[in-house]
């Protein structure tokens, strides 16, 4: 079958991306020095991408099955703590001077974190979420309860204090180009974040499973009427989302180099704001929203530290005033 080339496909909505670029561009004159701007921008992108990794699973889970997991933070914490144990256990590789053993240790830590978080997600879906499908009030309460229990279990295993999560040796410090200092770890974070984004876009856009997810986000009933057992798919998406949160937890922890059991609750607020900004169920919206948040947090943290803690709320209000359904609305709420 020939698709006439002259018929245009959808006009892609560039405005949110333009906003992102605009914010970055505006930062330069405000900050003054280009070298500082580069440092801050890379830091902002890294932070934004880590948040994106964590939030991407949550937004798909909500979009697909109308389930909002207020306990998503527990996967973040689990991933981060698993990483502390793995890195401590692989001290030889992590402390070695070479890049490859370091990356190896990091890679193992990330895999372990994703596996544990994914398994936890499986249990969570079965025990906590499944019994309350469709009942939003109970969902909010019970997923919160799940987070409390999860956090306590983490405290039981690792103790209630903060744990250090040191970067492997060759990832510490910065690349220096003239005036500009870019932290090595942040570059890695950006690379990993973009990789995750690319993989997600590929799965969603080019595979049949991705097609099912996108369709299911719009109209779950119709997908079932076409003969697909979408509930099974949902478990898979939930587990994948939890695994991603675990990965994000590791990366967040490495960013701060310290991990506390409350990390889940702390990041919870951020990711909720991000998925509201992005539009519930939209991966692209989540991506842009997270980057906006990361950039703004770093720019304003530099320009007006007192205001820094309000940037998130202010961003949310501003975006919702512009687009009440989020940057890239997907579901008709």
């Amino acid at each position: 079958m020939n698709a006439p080339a002259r018929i245009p496909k959808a006009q892609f909505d560039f405005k949110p991306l333009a906003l992102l670029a605009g914010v970055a561009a505006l930062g330069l004159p405000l900050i003054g020095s280009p070298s500082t701007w580069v440092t801050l921008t890379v830091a902002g992108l890294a932070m934004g991408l880590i948040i994106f990794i964590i939030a991407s699973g949550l937004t798909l889970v909500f979009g697909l099955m109308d389930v909002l997991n207020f306990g998503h933070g527990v996967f973040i914490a689990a991933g981060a703590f698993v990483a502390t144990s793995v890195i401590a256990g692989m001290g030889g590789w992590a402390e070695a001077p070479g890049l490859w053993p370091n990356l190896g240790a990091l890679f193992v830590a990330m895999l372990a974190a994703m596996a544990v978080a994914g398994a936890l997600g499986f249990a969570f879906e079965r025990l906590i979420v499944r019994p309350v499908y469709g009942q939003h009030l109970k969902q909010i309460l019970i997923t919160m309860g799940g987070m409390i229990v999860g956090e306590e279990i983490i405290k039981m295993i690792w103790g209630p204090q903060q744990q250090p999560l040191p970067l492997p040796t060759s990832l510490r410090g910065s690349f220096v180009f003239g005036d500009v200092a870019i932290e090595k770890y942040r570059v890695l974070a950006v690379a990993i974040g973009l990789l995750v984004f690319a993989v997600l876009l590929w799965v969603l856009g080019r595979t049949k499973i991705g097609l099912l997810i996108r369709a299911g986000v719009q109209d779950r009933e119709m997908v079932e009427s076409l003969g697909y057992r979408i509930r099974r798919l949902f478990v898979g998406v939930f587990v994948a989302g939890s695994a991603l949160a675990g990965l994000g937890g590791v990366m967040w922890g490495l960013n701060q180099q310290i991990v506390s059991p409350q990390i889940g609750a702390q990041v919870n607020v951020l990711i909720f704001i991000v998925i509201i900004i992005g539009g519930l169920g939209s991966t692209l919206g989540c991506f842009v929203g997270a980057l906006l948040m990361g950039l703004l947090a770093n720019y304003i943290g530099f320009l007006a530290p007192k205001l820094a803690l309000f940037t998130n709320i202010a961003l949310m209000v501003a975006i919702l005033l512009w687009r009440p359904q989020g940057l890239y609305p997907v579901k008709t709420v």
Partner: protein
Amino acid sequence: MTMLSRLLSHDLPRNRWLAAALLLIVLGLAFAPFLFPGSKALGVAAKMLVFIVLVASYDLLLGYTGIVSFAHTMFFGLGAYGVAIASNRMGEGWAAVATGTAAALALSLLLSLVIGLFSLRVKAIFFAMITLAVASAFQTLASQLSELTGGEDGLSFRNPAWLSPSFEPFEQPFLGVALDGKLLCYYLLFVAAVLLFLLLLRIVNSPFGRVLQAIRENDFRAEALGYRTVVYRTLSNVLSALFATLAGVLLALWLRYTGPDTTLSFEIMLDILLIVVIGGMGTMYGAVLGSVLFVLAQNYLQDLLKLTSGAFDGVPLLGTVLSPDRWLLWLGVLFVLSVYHFPAGIVGRLRVLRSGAARREGP
């Protein structure tokens, strides 16, 4: 009997055990200074009183109107900070307390109105997330404005003369208890808590309260019947916030200190949620029972668990699981089970048991 019924707005416990427990609680709290000597015990009793009002006001929102909000601690904090800031700025005394309370109530009214009108039109999930974000922002605000709020350290202040521990009108202790400002303060809390609770009972049993419950059950239907649900929901939000603010005022008066960790922390919000669900959503008495049990557990269960965990010290997993620090774990598990199996909490379960028994004994 009818007089008692009217006092309780005809919302009776409807269960022997519940009524007995409530009576025990009321008497215990009324005579706490005499029954349980020592400042720790009195502090526990005072905290119970504050939490009863705080959780009951949350039950109005969650149990009766069906709205989940994470901003309740914000209003709690407003009340406490109002009194603290006013006492600090204006010098301690009744004028400061009155001004602080009035200002806090006004601010709470405004905030809850704004939150209600903007957010109650959206889905419950949106609303919950937004309140989470707002509460978090308020918490950072409180710790940032350190000249006003004392930042992370909070504010200490002095109470009006009559409520100060140094106020001792009578030299002789009565029944072993010194008759000083602290005692007066306790009884102020007691009377206030009782009045506020009875007022809440009156509200939920009024026509307004019934409409709230109708909206909770099926808001489409309520809207179709002609009730502007947004108005009712907003009013519920506002009332709930105002009562929480007053609870904050009481707490501040008792502690003579206010800080982000006594009122605004997320842990407190979780505690409120735990209590209201386990005690029983939509019952009001659940708040009483739940708050008392929770505060007791928070303060004394650790000691109890220390005894048991000592016995299990050798056993690896059991030892950690039963450790006194892990009481929150069990509470969390109980919470999850309650949400799923016992949505009406302890109170609901008691009431069902009773009617089940009655049916079995039926004619």
